[in-house]
């Protein structure tokens, strides 16, 4: 075979070889790897999307729970506050009632004391008058008209009482 000369069979064989090589390499190297990498990319993207989705969901759920918790806490606080207010009111009411009762009792007691005092004073007066009369009658004896004496004593006693 001469150097630097065209030999048609070599050209034809080379062309066939190259085409066959191209087809085989495309089938066993390029298509599988390109598809594989493509699929893997898709898989990774899918799982990332999935994870993102789940994260969002969890976040939403968490927010929901948090809100619920907040609401519950607020409700509890309200209940406590309410009961506190109610208790205070009750307490005030009770105290007032007690104070009123106590005052009433006090007033009644004073009134009673007053009444008793007056009564005693009246009795004392009457007794003193009787005693004085008796003493005076004993002193003065019969000269004296009963009615006149009594008036005199009373007058005296009134003067003394006034003094």
């Amino acid at each position: 075979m001469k150097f630097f000369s065209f030999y048609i069979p070599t050209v034809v064989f080379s062309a066939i070889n190259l085409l066959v090589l191209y087809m085989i390499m495309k089938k066993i190297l390029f298509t599988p790897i390109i598809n594989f990498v493509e699929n893997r990319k898709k898989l990774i993207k899918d799982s990332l999307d999935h994870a993102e989705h789940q994260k969002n969901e969890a976040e939403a759920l968490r927010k929901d729970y948090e809100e619920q918790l907040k609401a519950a806490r607020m409700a509890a606080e309200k209940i406590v506050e309410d009961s506190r207010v109610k208790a205070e009111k009750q307490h005030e009411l009770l105290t007032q009632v007690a104070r009123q009762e106590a005052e009433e009792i006090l007033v009644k007691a004073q009134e009673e004391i007053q009444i008793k005092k007056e009564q005693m004073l009246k009795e004392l007066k009457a007794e003193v008058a009787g005693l004085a009369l008796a003493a005076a009658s004993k002193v003065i004896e019969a000269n004296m008209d009963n009615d006149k004496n009594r008036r005199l004593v009373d007058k005296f006693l009134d003067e003394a009482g006034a003094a």
Partner: protein
Amino acid sequence: METGLFAIAAGIAVLTGFGAGIGIGIATSRAAEGVSRQPEAAGKITTITLIGSVLAEATAIYGLVVALIILFVKWPA
């Protein structure tokens, strides 16, 4: 056939290598300058230099091919 004259002719044809050598040298020196001035453009400059060198080299290759034709193709006497 005077083989000596054919050999001389082939030698002259291969002198195209001069031009290619000078051209590629200039291109590469400019590329080196460009890279030292702008190192971030090294990739692009390399590509352009490669194209330029390859095109400049074509003349040398044509000279070589002509020399081979002179030497190996049977010329009618």
